[in-house]
């Protein structure tokens, strides 16, 4: 089975099958990160696809100094940060969900409400704090990998995580969010 680097080389030479294979291998990582950062499925799909196309454009210049996965996260994160920094926080855009006819068992309802509260709190964070938390908690990247993805230093990542967690704690304690 070809490695990611071999697929990148082939894609750089115009092999779209190799490009397709790369997408299939890593689409889940790109999609998950984009969805957690942007919160909207349509935007997440757009951003994740754009990331792969950007990677294809730069394939001839790709040098495997880090893993392809780290490189992918860098491209996805920066595309998502660009989108986030250009728009208002999502929770202001979203209409309140209409109550469903059958909310289901109380535990399921409570879980949904908790998840919504966490989503709102995450959406309210500044983009870079949000990105640092998403990449750490959900994508399990190291501080160095997060620094590379966001384009900053390890020390700065530590600060972003500390501030993001503080802010999240504060928001989740607000009435209606606990």
């Amino acid at each position, binding site marked *: 089975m070809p490695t990611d680097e071999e697929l990148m080389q082939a894609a750089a030479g115009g092999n779209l099958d190799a490009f397709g294979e790369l997408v299939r291998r890593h689409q*889940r990582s790109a999609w998950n990160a984009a969805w957690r950062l942007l919160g909207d499925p349509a935007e997440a799909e757009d951003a994740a696809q754009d990331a792969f196309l950007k990677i294809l454009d730069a394939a001839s210049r790709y040098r495997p100094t880090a893993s392809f996965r780290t490189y992918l996260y860098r491209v996805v994160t920066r595309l998502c940060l660009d989108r986030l920094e250009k728009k208002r926080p999502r929770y202001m855009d979203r209409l309140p969900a209409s109550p469903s006819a059958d909310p289901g068992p109380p535990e399921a309802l409570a879980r949904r409400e908790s*998840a919504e509260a966490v989503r709102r709190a995450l959406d309210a964070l500044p983009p870079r704090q949000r990105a640092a938390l998403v990449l750490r908690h*959900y994508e399990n990247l190291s501080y160095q990998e997060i620094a590379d993805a966001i384009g900053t230093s390890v020390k700065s990542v530590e600060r972003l995580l500390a501030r993001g*967690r503080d802010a999240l704690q504060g928001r989740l304690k607000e009435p209606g969010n606990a």
Partner: protein
Amino acid sequence: MRCRHIQSMLNRYLDGELSSEQRGDIERHVGACDSCREALERLRATAAALSQLAQPPDIPAGFAERAVIRAARRREQRRVVVPFWKSFSPAMRLAAAAMVILGLGLGSMMGLDFVGGSATPPDLAQADPDAVYGFDYLSDAPAGSLADVYLTLASANNGGGQ
């Protein structure tokens, strides 16, 4: 001071970014310090809350296929758009460049004439005395000149100034 130092390391401790020696140091301190233990508990609670975020929905069906189609379409579009300049043969490019240089040269020559031709500013000392006189209200006006007529009329109206 010690607690401040320990609490500044708790995020890295939680994220597994410390050496085993540093981890040991923190665990010993947290075991004996309520304030630092509570700070660590708050961080763990935040991490637990984050895990409540809903799982992402399934990746949309056909995601990879659409990405490949978009890539193929872009490659096709780039093939069709040939850079304008590159579509010229070398001989045509040379001819076009020569015409531009010739045009610029002619233009600059015509521009000099249009502006006034002579590069030397007018020398007032050599100017036509009559032309200069036209603005000299204090000198005697030559007989029969317009200025003379005007001055005659003006003097008559004022009774010669008396």
